[in-house]
């Protein structure tokens, strides 16, 4: 019997070995596959077990976390959802993440190895450090100014710091509250369905992901190409351009919206936005020169990340002469994101050097110690410094005594360019009103801020749409929020309760510590000073076939 008891014991030992081998298989060999099974809720549970880190604007969180008490415990909240939606994006337990929420997800959700001094420890202990924060380059006052300016209209604003590429404002309108998508269940699903079905496309980030025909704002690129290529050496020399201008190789006549463009110099053409002159200059520069110049400004580049990807802005590389003429005034197939046009203004303001735009200034651990820091990065030279200087002068004239006078800010040097872009089949669509601008304090060489504004449905009345009327006041409000103005108005206005002291806490500007005037305040009505173009001035902007108004 002894022998058989031993055999039984061996048999039981065999069973034990089988169990041990099998749990080894399950817990080590198959563990990764089980963990990656989409039906396994553990990654999601772990992801939402801790409050997510915050997205900061002016060092104040614009996001938050709410303990839902559910299995996926912490849900995202947004303090000012629609205002910052184009920056933050959404972080949804059902629909994933977008924009900064996506780009910095590893830091925000606490999985970034940089969050821990001892990543190996977390690896071993299977814990995870608390979510870190992502501090954006956005300045609350500018964001709010742009958002308020666009209120009720479709459009977008992008503002940059020319010297660094920091994105100071990024607004898309109409917007949405990403907080409605945060959780799981029917509420989030209903919100998702509603937002996606909305014909106004509130979830579309128009500043980064929508391309518009840039219209006359593109004339800055054409002018830079002309100066850099030597096609135009004297900006004040007459150009021998007929009005209207017959598109090369066709019998189509390109008109101007107003008068006074015949034989105008390039300086006047920029100042008064003459289609004929700039189209002809574009043709003289030639396809290769124009494509090259557009590329230097960032057109036709696919890989731009801020860190969210940005739609490609287009300038066709294979065109006939008449198409090139139209493209040189920002029509035909030329398309640009608002960010791209802000980059054009920034390159001019920054002496020709184009900085890569970026949105995340730094990421930090939850105690504030740094993880990574966004650094200015050059995208190369868009034009020579001399050209940039020349263009600055031309753009200042546009604002001082040209088509863009609604953007003028006393005490600041403001350069701008208006645009009214035709679009739609047979130009059936309501034109887009554009304004790109840069500004700096008087008597300083430092470029302060560059802005691009596009307004899609500027007005129901087609004839009233113009960059100066619809878009320039918004650019002006953003500029005023960006740069402290020696303000003759009521001194030291009370802080806007919505923004609190944060607006004053923005990074110190080289121009001094004075607080930028809040554009949202009633004493600063958006269409400023009632300045209208002089009656003698040509009415700007008309695309091909637009005909006289």
């Amino acid at each position: 019997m002894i022998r058989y008891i031993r055999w039984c014991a061996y048999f039981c030992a065999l069973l034990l070995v089988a169990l041990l081998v099998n749990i080894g298989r399950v817990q080590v060999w198959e563990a990764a596959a089980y963990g990656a099974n989409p039906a396994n809720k553990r990654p999601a549970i772990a992801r939402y077990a801790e409050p997510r880190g915050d997205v900061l604007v002016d060092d104040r969180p614009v996001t938050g976390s709410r303990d839902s008490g559910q299995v996926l415990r912490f849900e995202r909240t947004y303090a000012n959802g629609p205002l910052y939606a184009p920056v933050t994006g959404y972080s949804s337990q059902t629909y994933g993440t977008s924009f900064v929420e996506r780009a910095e997800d590893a830091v925000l959700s606490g999985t970034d190895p940089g969050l821990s001094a001892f990543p190996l420890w977390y690896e071993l202990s299977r814990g995870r450090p608390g979510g870190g924060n992502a501090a954006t380059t956005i300045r609350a006052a500018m964001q709010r100014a742009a958002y308020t300016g666009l209120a009720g209209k479709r459009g977008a604003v992008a503002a940059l710091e020319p010297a660094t590429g920091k994105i100071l404002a990024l607004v898309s309108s109409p917007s949405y509250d990403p907080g409605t998508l945060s959780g799981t269940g029917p509420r989030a699903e209903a919100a998702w369905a509603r937002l996606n079905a909305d014909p106004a496309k509130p979830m579309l980030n128009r500043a980064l992901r929508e391309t518009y025909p840039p219209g006359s704002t593109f004339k800055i690129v054409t002018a830079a190409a002309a100066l850099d290529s030597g096609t135009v050496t004297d900006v004040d020399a007459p150009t021998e351009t007929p009005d209207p201008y017959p598109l090369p190789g066709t019998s189509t006549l390109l008109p101007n919206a107003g008068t006074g463009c015949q034989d105008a110099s390039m300086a006047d053409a920029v100042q008064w936005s003459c289609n004929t002159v700039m189209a002809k200059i574009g043709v003289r520069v030639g396809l290769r020169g124009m494509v090259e110049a557009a590329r230097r400004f960032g057109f036709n580049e696919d890989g731009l990340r801020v860190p969210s990807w940005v739609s490609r802005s287009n300038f066709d590389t294979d065109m006939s002469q008449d198409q090139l003429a139209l493209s040189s005034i920002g029509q035909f197939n030329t398309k640009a994101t608002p960010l791209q046009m802000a980059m054009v203004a920034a390159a001019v303001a920054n002496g020709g050097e184009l900085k890569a735009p970026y949105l995340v200034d730094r990421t930090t651990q939850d105690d504030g110690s740094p993880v990574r820091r966004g650094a200015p990065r050059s995208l190369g030279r868009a034009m020579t410094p001399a050209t940039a200087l020349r263009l600055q002068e031309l753009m200042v004239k546009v604002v001082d005594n040209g088509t863009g006078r609604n953007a003028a800010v006393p005490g600041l040097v403001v350069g701008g360019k208006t645009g009214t872009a035709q679009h739609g089949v047979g130009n059936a669509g309501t034109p887009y009103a554009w304004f790109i601008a840069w500004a700096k304090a008087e008597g300083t060489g430092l470029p302060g801020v560059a802005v691009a504004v596009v307004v899609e449905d500027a007005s129901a009345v087609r004839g009233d749409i113009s960059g100066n009327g619809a878009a320039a006041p918004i650019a002006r409000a953003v500029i005023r929020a960006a740069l402290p103005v020696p303000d003759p108005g009521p001194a030291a206005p009370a802080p806007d309760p919505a923004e609190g002291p944060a607006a004053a806490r923005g990074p110190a500007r080289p121009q001094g510590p004075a607080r930028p005037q809040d554009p949202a305040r009633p004493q600063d009505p958006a269409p400023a000073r009632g300045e209208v173009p002089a009656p003698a001035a040509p009415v700007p902007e008309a695309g091909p076939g637009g005909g006289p108004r």
Partner: protein
Amino acid sequence: MTALTAQVAEPAPPPPDAHAPRRRGVELTLLAGAVLISVLGHLYVGLATTGRIPAGSARYAGGLAGAALLAHLAVRLRAPYADPVVLPIAVLLNGLGLVLIQRLDATTPAHLTADDQLLWSAFGAALFVVAVVLLRDHRTLQRYAYLSVAAALVLMLVPVFFPAVNGAHIWIRFAGLSFQPGEFAKILLAVFFASYLAANRTALALTGRRLFWRLRLLPGRVLGPILAIWLLSVGVLVLERDLGTSLLFFGLFVIMLFTATGRIGWIAIGLVLAGLGAYAVGTLEPHVNSRVDDWLNPFASIDRGEGPGQLAQSLFSFGAGGLLGAGLGHGQSFLIGFAAKSDFVLATAGEELGLVGLTAILLLYGLLVSRGFRTGLALRDPFGRLLATGLASIVALQVFVIAGGVTGLIPLTGMAMPFLAQGGSSVVTNWIIVALLVRLSDSARRPEPQESAA
């Protein structure tokens, strides 16, 4: 033939050393360690799940330490030569079981079971003390063989008249208490098998007509009654849809028959028959059929879009545990659902203690089982040997069936992990098994009376 005769004529093992050490101090030290580990686990779970020391800590620590101390005193006074490892293993496993149930309670606040389990554990420990004190010699049990089998059959038949719970007629619900009589029946059946086989093993081993080669037909006169009883019990269990226990009884019967007779051919035939029976039940009975399907393809329900089933969730749990585990209180094994505390309690151990912790737990069972077999080897009477073998096999088979089931090694059959799973009858039964093992090991290691008197 020669081997069999040699077996029967085998001399008794050499008598234990006259100065056999009692090792009660070792037992006490191990017990202190087991209680300490359990209490630390209990505190850790509280801190991990609620952030503070749980309210019932004093009750838990006191109850466990008190039970361990009382059990130790009973052993020290009434079974001083008992194996010093058996009791500490039982205390440690029971303590860990309470920790795991306390941890799972944290995810099911509406259905708290840790206190019930503590109460049942205390009751089990009390029965341990009573059994060790009252049962002076295990051979007494031999006399009650037929009473045992009668009681076992009655216990197993009774649940048929009670409503099914989760598809199995194995519970008796009475006055708010639920009770699984099949658990007790397995001890009674082991006692009966051991007693019957010890009495008839010579006839079983040596007689019978030769069929072919070394295979002999066992004499029907001797084999008949025991075969009938085994068939009856398995039949009842199939009726009750308690497949795990019928598997256990089958295995117990085969192992004890083999140990008594050494007829390996019969084991083979038994296995073949059992395989055929299992195949028939597996194809015909939908409750079992679905479990076999689950085992063959645990993720089928995910592919069908119905989400992971219990077994898939259990595998996810084990996988999530990995090598070192998530740490007590940090796992998500509650995803398994309603059986997480009972059938699937091992998944929580796997997820939160990892491969390392789970291996340790399985080795504890292995150690317990090996001590049972050692006792069987050291004992001198056939009844004691068979009983020790049977009890050790019960534990081993039960651990294999349930652990193999929840880790996808074999099809899942509802069964309780000894000491770990939630369930009063199971804990009490296992304490009685441990009491019997302690009693048997005391007899096995006790020096010969005349030598100790010398």
